[in-house]
């Protein structure tokens, strides 16, 4: 079959098969052998015959170790199937061994591009089981850090999206700005990633001296850079042609697949947990939920770019409203005593020892807490048997669920667009496989 130029750019009207076709059957794997022609026999590829190729797991554009089985007809992707599990590290299982105190060191490693969201979801779930109310300063610090984290995560997306589509300078630009945010995180938590900073009951430490100036500097530095991105990418005809109409998803499909985050919003459906199920203090700040119109890769790019701007708007409001006071819940059973208390009070010393050895016990029950991570709804489900460890820890990873829409996005698209599609889903494989 021949492909003319029109099909590549105006893909919005493409027909999409039903899910039975999309679901790549086991036989697809079996057919791989058939396609390999026996040695020495000339193998004529008939015009309607398809070819299977594996993309990944070690492919620079698959964001880690995602493997895609693609069934191709010429340059066209007929069916595709993501294969996962190459980064499986058993983190959910590991979470059952670690106490609630240690748990954040584990969950923070799942979505390593937005570690603070993992910690937040986990902490919120534990706090709900404990029936704790977090002090206001802790809430606002959490909000400040997660919004900055949303920015750094989306900046990383800008970088990788540019890189995947050949805009190499964008890759460097995105990383340059992200580095600025990570530098602030390093000042706050001592680590660039995997912070272990948001803990059940509050945050590990107060913001460092001079934090306000650092954040103000970020708010000054980033907006002109985003305008640069607009010139370099948003308004660039090459960029537009590469993304517009590529990988179109509509609202019904997105909802049926459970897709959340920028992917769902790109279809025009304004769903953002920060607004629709407010947690932390999101009901006290003003921000817009950015939505798209066409549900294509360009919308997803534009949404993320504008969400960085919205996040900065929120951060500016947080700066004005940051309250003072405790930043960790003052419950002796959950929070270790201040260091100055250890020497003077036997009771404090005992609590200190108990919390750091066996951890704190959490009442029996089960709970689900969800936050809006840069990739979508990140949920944490914990079953507690009343001990100091979760009986079961389950994370609802937005990357995994968003990945399910890849076969939809890619069907009847060009293989060259496959990269654009993977990139615009923005999966973090650490979170997919856990």
């Amino acid at each position, binding site marked *: 079959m021949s492909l003319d130029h029109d099909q590549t750019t105006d893909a919005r009207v493409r027909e999409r098969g039903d899910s039975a076709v999309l679901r790549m059957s086991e036989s697809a794997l079996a057919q791989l052998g058939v396609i390999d022609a026996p040695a020495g026999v000339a193998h004529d590829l008939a015009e309607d015959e398809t070819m299977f190729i594996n993309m990944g797991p070690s492919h620079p554009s698959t964001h880690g170790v995602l493997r895609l089985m693609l069934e191709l007809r010429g340059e066209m992707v007929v069916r595709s199937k993501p294969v996962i599990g190459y980064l499986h590290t058993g983190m959910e299982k590991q979470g059952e061994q670690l106490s609630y105190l*240690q748990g954040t*060191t584990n969950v923070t490693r799942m979505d390593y591009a937005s570690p603070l969201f993992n910690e937040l979801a986990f902490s919120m779930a534990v706090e709900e089981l404990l029936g704790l109310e977090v002090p206001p300063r*802790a809430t606002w610090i959490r909000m400040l850090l997660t919004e900055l984290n949303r920015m750094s995560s989306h900046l990383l997306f800008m970088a990788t999206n540019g890189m995947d589509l050949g805009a190499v*300078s964008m890759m460097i630009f995105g990383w340059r700005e992200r580095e600025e945010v990570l*530098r602030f995180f*390093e*000042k706050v938590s*001592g680590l660039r990633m*995997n912070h*272990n900073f948001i803990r059940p009951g509050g*945050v590990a*430490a*107060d*913001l*460092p*001296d*001079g*934090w*306000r100036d650092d954040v103000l500097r970020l708010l000054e530095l980033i907006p002109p850079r985003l305008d*640069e991105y607009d*010139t*370099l990418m948003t*308004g*660039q*005809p090459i*960029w537009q042609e590469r993304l517009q109409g590529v990988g179109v998803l509509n609202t019904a499909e997105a909802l049926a697949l459970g897709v959340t985050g920028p992917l769902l919003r790109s279809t025009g459906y*304004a769903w953002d947990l920060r*607004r629709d199920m*407010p947690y932390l203090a*999101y*009901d*006290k*700040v003003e*921000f*817009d939920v*950015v*939505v*798209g119109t066409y549900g294509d890769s360009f919308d997803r790019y*534009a*949404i993320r770019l*504008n969400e960085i701007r919205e996040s900065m708007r929120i951060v500016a409001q947080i700066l*004005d*409203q*940051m*309250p*003072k*006071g*405790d930043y*960790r819940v*003052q419950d002796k059973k959950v*929070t270790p*005593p*201040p*260091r*100055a*208390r250890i020497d003077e009070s036997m009771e404090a*010393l005992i609590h*200190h020892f108990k919390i*750091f*050895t066996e951890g704190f016990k959490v009442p029996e029950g089960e709970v689900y807490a969800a936050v809006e991570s840069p990739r979508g709804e990140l949920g944490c489900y914990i079953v507690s048997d009343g001990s100091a460890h979760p009986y079961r820890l389950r994370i609802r990873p937005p990357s995994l669920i968003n990945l399910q829409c890849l076969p939809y996005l890619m069907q009847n698209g060009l293989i060259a667009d496959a990269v654009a599609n993977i990139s615009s889903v923005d999966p973090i494989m650490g979170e997919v496989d856990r």
Partner: protein
Amino acid sequence: MGVLDYLRGFRVTFDKLFEERVTTEYPEEKSPKPDRLHGRHVLNRYEDGMEKCIGCELCAGVCPAKCIYVRGQDNPLDEPVSPGERFGYIYEINYLRCIHCDLCVEACPTQAITETKLFEFSFTNRSDAIYTKDELLVGDDGLPQNLPWEDWRPGEDVATSAWMRATSPAGDADYVGTVGWSGELGYGVRAPEVGQFGEDPEPPAAEVDPVDEGGHH
């Protein structure tokens, strides 16, 4: 959409030629490390040279990566190693496992174990990755030992234990700025962080009305 749009985009990249460089010539040149950075650990001493570690194994108990091995022993009566009854006579950290979460630093009741800013070190075999007391204990001057396979820069060995000080109020506003730690050999009693009450005198602004409707771009 015209030729001009292409050119405008390319100009962004082109202009960078004349801007200041943001990259550094690593490893010759390094970006500054913040105080709270979690690096490899040190075992501290009191100002009189006594070891702070009492071999209580709290650090080993809290470590999520299970990379600390401690054994305590009764202090020899004639020549005590630490004040009090016991001291840590075996202390090992496996740096192939350590994730630098610094929970051990938060757990230690005597501030014996704290973090330095050093993270650039490598080993040629697995047993070298296990630091023992010989390597972890601070020298007679109270400074961390500069081991030959570690890349220390001037000033880096001074900034130790900032995370211990940052987490010491445990979220209690009443303890912000309170010194809850003892002096260290070579440093004396270190000053706490300024904290939230020293930073800016202005009170937080009045609350804004919760306005919140979905917007469109």
